[in-house]
């Protein structure tokens, strides 16, 4: 229904989930591989160059920053994105390749002496991203960062469940009531 949909409005990019469904086992196997590689300290990327990966990771780290709690960087979001771009979101490769190149052009224009986004100071990064926050590239990185932060770890991100732990979510097959503060009080007769 409409208002609900409008409520949920947002420029959500189309992923080909029919493809995803058909290729599920191979996708999961690949994700597991990327994850193991990440855990072993080898930065293995199937789509990104090392430089592109660093740039995308720096953008993701501004979308969900690391401060007193883990952010996109600790969640390994860039690995999620790399795997997405070689599996279910293959058709978005160009958006990333062109997006990173355009971002670096802006870096050189606005911050002479710098070549890479990841080399900028935090405030400079925020300033630059604010200027491009309505672009298709930024929207896609934002969507992927959120997914990579909060999807099942099997996809390569949400490392050690950091995203889930941060928001207070856990994935279990079974829970017992009481579930939250108010039903616990209710059970105690407090209402």
């Amino acid at each position, binding site marked *: 229904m409409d208002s609900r949909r409008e409520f949920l409005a*947002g420029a959500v990019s189309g992923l080909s989930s029919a493809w995803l469904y058909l290729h599920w086992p191979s996708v999961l196997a690949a994700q597991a591989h990327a994850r193991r590689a990440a855990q072993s300290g080898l930065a293995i990327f199937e789509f990104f160059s090392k430089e592109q990966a660093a740039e995308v990771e720096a953008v993701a780290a501004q979308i969900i920053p690391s401060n007193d709690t883990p952010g996109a960087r600790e969640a390994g979001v860039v690995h999620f994105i790399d795997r997405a771009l070689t599996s279910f979101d293959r058709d978005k490769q160009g958006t990333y390749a062109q997006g990173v190149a355009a971002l670096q052009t802006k870096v050189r224009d606005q911050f002479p002496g710098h070549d890479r986004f990841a080399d900028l100071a935090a405030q400079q990064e925020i300033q630059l991203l604010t200027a491009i926050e309505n672009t298709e590239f930024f929207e896609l990185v934002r969507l992927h960062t959120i997914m990579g932060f909060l999807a099942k770890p099997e996809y390569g991100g949400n490392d050690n469940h950091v995203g889930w732990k941060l928001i207070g979510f856990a994935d279990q097959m079974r829970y017992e009531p009481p579930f939250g*503060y108010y039903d616990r009080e209710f059970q105690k007769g407090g209402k």
Partner: protein
Amino acid sequence: MVRFADKAQVDFVVIGGGGAGPIVAKELSMAGLQVVILEQGPYLHEGDFEHDELKFKDIFDPPGIGREVLTRDHALQPDTFRKTEKEKAVVVPFIEYGRCIGGGTVHFTGNYWRFHEIDFHERSKWGELPGTGLADWPITYAELEPYYTKAEWELGISGQAGANPFDPPRSKSYPLPPMPIKSSGVLLERGARRLGWHPYPAPLAILSRPYKGRAACAHCGFCEYFGCEWGAKSSTLAAVIPAAEKTGRCEIRPNSYVRKISTDMRGRVDGVIYFDHAKQEHFQKAKAAVVCCNGAETPRLLLMSKSNLFAQGLANSSGLVGKFFMVDLGSTCQGIFEHPLNDYKGVRATRIVQDFYDSDTKRGFFGGGGIDARFNFYPISFALYGLPPGTPRWGTEFKHALIENFNRSMTLYGHTTCLPIESNSISLDPEVKDAWGLPALRITYKCHPDDLSTMKFFAERSMELLDAAGAIKKWAAPVEDATSAGHLMGTCRMGNNPKSSVVNKNHRAHDIPNLFIVDGSSFVTSGRNQPTCTIQALAYRAADHIVSTAKSGSITSSI
């Protein structure tokens, strides 16, 4: 499991394996009749379902319908939409429905509201409503009551009889006690009582205790939009299909997409033409057909089945096939509370309030509804859509808002009337085709002003309720005309007069004696946007009539 030979004639072909078809098929096969269910979607099982928001939740599509594992893929089955008949319809995803064995009952919330007595005779009580086709049903609540009870006991419904003072009379209590209350339920209950309203435990098609060999709900939380990995959700997949298959007379044939119901020289159904998974055409011979595709696909199939004898489409001498299309309307409000609700655990909704169910002339418009309190956002969808308006979309404050709000949030859904209007319709798009070369669903839909007023009224009541419950922040979605639909009702309405309805009170097409239509399309009015319980009660009732008709020998007339 029975597998009928390719050329074999069965007694009944049931088209559509969703909320209604398996019930009819099970009852017919238990009565000794041979039945095949043709379902366009796959036959998935508990082992195919997962706790995986990326795979199952509706974030894959362009803004935002379609969970394509369990529902249709709009890339393969496009819709076209227009607000009025004067406009040219444009391609846009509009209709969503379950597309697998079990249909929408696989991924639904499980809300299981009976209609009230008033829902069957609103026209008599409130009079004519200009601009609408408001009409009484040809049956009463009392006639359907035994079948509501049958549905609740056959499928396994959890609830508390007598807890809702507005409940219609019932002959028997629920077979299972209500699900344990969640924090969102406690907050609804608290707010509603402060306002003098009457909250009560949500009746749900989810097992609170083991039932008929099925496991009880484990409160894992992956409920709406997901298939139940425990078989605890009382979908037709879990609760009906196994018994149907066990008869040895009911074949479930998935990935079978019917494109035409065939009729003989005398205008009787003699079988159906369908595509298999490889798009190969087959002809299934049958003595009779039961169409259970849903309120959008049923009229589409009837219109696609036109022939020299039935130039307007099948069962359409009234010209009303596809007309009076009704959709799920309502309101959505969200609140943030001081303490953690942890509402991601457990079923979606545990408390409901129906104090504003019937129309009331004092409000100045026709319509009513009910409100449930629910968990509404899994982690990814919460980050994308669930944060308070005005929250920065990225950066430190965005992250902070995720941490602060995920577990302290709940949503109130108002479920409201959708008035029947003849020009709101399902028809065949003259140009756009689906991946099988069949005409796309064309939707013509515009809300009645009273429907918009009802939605606004329920948004206001929900905001009051959030206040009374102690929300520290609250907001309401804007009320607007529908741009999508999930509960598909009213396109082959039932009635006694063949000139003003498509099926009779027993779901038999007025025009064709061996054609039955049993799903949301039979609805004359929408109730309050929670149709599954009534669709299934109607299916049990229709099955009784179809069985007795078959036994009397009056169906096999096409041989």
